[in-house]
């Protein structure tokens, strides 16, 4: 099995090397064949691993492969821990990655950076595998940073666009803030456990119960919150979410792969992996839940006022990540992973469909300039309909099961403020339905607002784009129905996730669950269903039936509109407080510390001091030989006199 896992990880890496270093020699066709082959191998083997671990129920694989570094009695290894949780992630990551690789052939075909792009996405796949298969914190951190690096490279892929360069810098910097927390969390783990291996840490949890650090902060809470700050950066939770909408500057395939389906869910995966740790701290769980609820509700609201097709989907991603985080907070880790999985499929689908529309529209992204595309692009239309229905949680589709379970889990949670969070996630359903269908109607239905020139070229995208759409539409529609029961209730993830008995949400969910079919029929009497229904109706009214009403509301509630369009002012706050603050701080260090103290005082100061003493002695040096001779003789006289009349006299023994 060790060889198999190594192959899963290394196949995309080798593909990436070929594409990156030999891409220009090999040509486009060979490049995409090699990288796709690499990912295909990983995908097939991932499905095999999934079958081996999850379906056949074999034991988890946990083995160190290679000693990365060793100092003192600490050694850090590269190792793989493949259990059911990892196997699920492997399947999701490799499948979506494969689809995106294929899609890229069509999407990037007229781009100069074709081979470079393939190299990057394969490298990303490698890094993501390293992250999910890691068996220790250090390798997790390696994967964490590596996916961040590739994300940075890909957001700024079109580096001639200034906005893309700004966006990738922003993504990189915001992620560093999260990483600081993450690294501190890892440092605390290392300090108190003296190991970074997951299993060893989880086995020694009793040792740290009750330890407090700084003022009465429980150590577990501190570790959990610090680790979660890392997750907040990567999984774009408020207030570290600001980079994700900007990441839409990158090409659409990576928005689908990195900024919707896989990388941004790394935080969710990490918290699930750390479930034994998080279960020990009620405070940390509450923190997680509240941050998630804020993200789910308020980021969804922003989706309503966006007009860029990719940004709407980006805000929807933020909101859905918020849902997953809420699920983590209420100890429903398996539900979070379940939603992660369904979301990966339908959100990748939505992004790729958006990309298909963008290609057809000649890189026009404003939904106000679209409309009536239904008849022109039937495959894109039907697949995005499936994706949108899955996103809003229409009964029967994948998102319905996962989202419904999250909402139910919150309802049964005993944590403080869980009732408020319940209201937030219910309201979130309405908002999700509203913005999703608003976009859907504006793009595909109603009057065409496309300009004449573009309209004459409008046609369905080529096979390399439609095949991934169809391949992703199938799981988006059905995967929830088929996997809800084994994944949540009959133990696919049980061995990987530990839940404290006092957090009873999952237990109650389990006892209430009858069958996937029953959930559909029951949904008609639940709040989420009607909120969703209301959302779709509202979207229809505002974007198709009475478009002038939307403008009327916009004018009536100028203040609210302003708040939403300025994105709650997070960007401005960051600009004023952090950017300008650091600029000031930098200026202080530059002008006062560097230019003032180091340059003026230390460097020039010591030279000036030497110069000053020099100027004191300089008058003696007249340049006249007789002056020098005079001084020499005077000095000689002085020294001789001193030698003669001071104690030991070497001349005294002479015979004269």
């Amino acid at each position, binding site marked *: 099995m060790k060889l198999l896992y190594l192959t899963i990880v290394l196949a995309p890496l080798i593909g990436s090397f070929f594409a990156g270093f030999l891409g220009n020699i090999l040509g486009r066709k060979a490049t995409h064949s090699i990288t796709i082959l690499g990912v295909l191998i990983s995908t097939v083997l991932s499905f095999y691993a999934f079958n081996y671990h999850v379906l056949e129920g074999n034991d988890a694989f946990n083995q160190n492969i290679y000693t990365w570094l060793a100092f003192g009695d600490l050694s850090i290894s590269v190792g793989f821990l493949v259990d059911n949780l990892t196997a699920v992630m492997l399947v999701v990551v490799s499948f979506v990655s494969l689809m995106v690789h294929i899609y890229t052939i069509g999407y990037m075909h007229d781009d100069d950076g074709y081979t470079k792009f393939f190299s990057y996405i394969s490298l990303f796949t490698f890094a993501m595998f390293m992250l999910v298969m890691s068996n220790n914190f250090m390798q997790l951190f390696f994967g964490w940073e590596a996916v961040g690096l590739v994300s940075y490279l890909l957001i700024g892929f079109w580096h001639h666009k200034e906005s893309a360069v700004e966006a990738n810098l922003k993504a990189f910097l915001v992620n560093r803030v999260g990483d600081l927390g993450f690294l501190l969390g890892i440092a605390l783990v290392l300090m108190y456990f003296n190991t970074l291996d997951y299993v060893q840490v989880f086995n020694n949890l009793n040792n740290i119960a009750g330890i407090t650090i700084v003022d009465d902060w429980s150590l577990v809470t501190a570790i959990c919150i610090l680790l979660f700050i890392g997750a907040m950066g990567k999984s774009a939770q408020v207030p570290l979410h600001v980079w994700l909408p900007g990441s839409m500057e990158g090409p659409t395939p990576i928005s689908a792969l990195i900024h919707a389906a896989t990388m941004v869910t790394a935080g969710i995966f990490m918290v699930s992996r750390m479930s034994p740790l998080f279960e020990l701290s009620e405070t940390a769980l509450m923190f997680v839940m509240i941050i998630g609820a804020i993200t789910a509700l308020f980021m969804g609201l922003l989706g309503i006022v966006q007009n860029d097709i990719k940004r709407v989907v980006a805000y929807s991603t933020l909101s859905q990540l918020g849902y997953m985080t809420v699920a983590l907070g209420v100890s429903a880790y398996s539900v979070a992973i379940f939603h992660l999985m369904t979301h990966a499929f339908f959100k990748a689908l939505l992004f790729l469909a958006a990309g298909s529309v963008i290609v057809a529209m000649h890189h026009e992204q404003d939904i106000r300039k679209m409309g009536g595309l239904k008849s022109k692009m039937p495959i894109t239309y039907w697949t995005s309909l499936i994706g949108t229905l899955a996103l809003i949680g229409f009964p029967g589709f994948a998102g319905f099961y996962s989202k419904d379970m999250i909402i139910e889990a919150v309802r049964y949670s005993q944590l403080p403020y869980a009732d408020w969070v319940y209201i937030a996630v219910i309201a979130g359903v309405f908002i999700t339905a509203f913005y999703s269908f608003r976009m859907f109607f504006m793009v595909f239905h109603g009057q065409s607002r496309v300009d004449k020139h573009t309209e004459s070229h409008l046609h369905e995208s080529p096979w390399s784009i439609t095949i991934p759409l169809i391949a992703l539409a199938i799981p988006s529609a059905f995967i929830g129905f088929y996997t809800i029961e084994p994944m949540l209730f009959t133990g696919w993830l049980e061995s990987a996730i530990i839940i404290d008995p006092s957090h009873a949400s999952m237990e109650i969910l389990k006892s209430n669950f009858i069958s996937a079919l029953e959930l559909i029929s029951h949904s008609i009497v639940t709040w989420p269903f009607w909120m969703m229904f209301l959302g779709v109706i509202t979207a229809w009214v505002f974007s198709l039936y009475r478009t002038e009403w939307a403008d009327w509301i916009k004018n009536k509630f100028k203040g609210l509109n302003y708040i939403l369009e300025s994105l709650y002012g997070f960007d401005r706050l960051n600009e004023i407080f952090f950017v300008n603050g650091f600029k000031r701080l930098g200026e202080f260090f530059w002008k006062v510390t560097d230019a003032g103290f180091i340059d003026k005082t230390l460097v020039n100061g010591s030279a000036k001091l030497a110069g000053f003493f020099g100027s004191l002695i300089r008058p003696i040096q007249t*340049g*006249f030989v*007789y002056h020098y*001779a005079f001084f020499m003789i005077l000095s000689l006289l002085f020294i001789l006199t001193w030698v003669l009349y001071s104690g030991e006299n070497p001349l005294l023994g002479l015979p004269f």
Partner: protein
Amino acid sequence: MISLSDYLILSSIIFCIGLVGIFINRKNIITLLMCVELILAAVNTNFIAFSHFLGNEAGQIFVFFILTVAAAEVAIGLAILTLMFRNRGSIDIDITSSLKG
């Protein structure tokens, strides 16, 4: 019999003549060189006198070295002097103060 102190007095006189020549000479570099030779001669006298009266030949060998060095020094000094005269048109001491700090 000439005693050691006679030699020493003589060399002191020669030394002082050389020294004073350096101090009060404001005119000519050749004079300066001659004064340096006088000083060296005084030292040589001392060496030979001590060598003789102490019965140690090392002093006389020293004198040979000093004579050689002095000869070389004069040769170089005169060469510099010639060049200086060619470049500046004068060997006046008062104008040779370009090393003034």
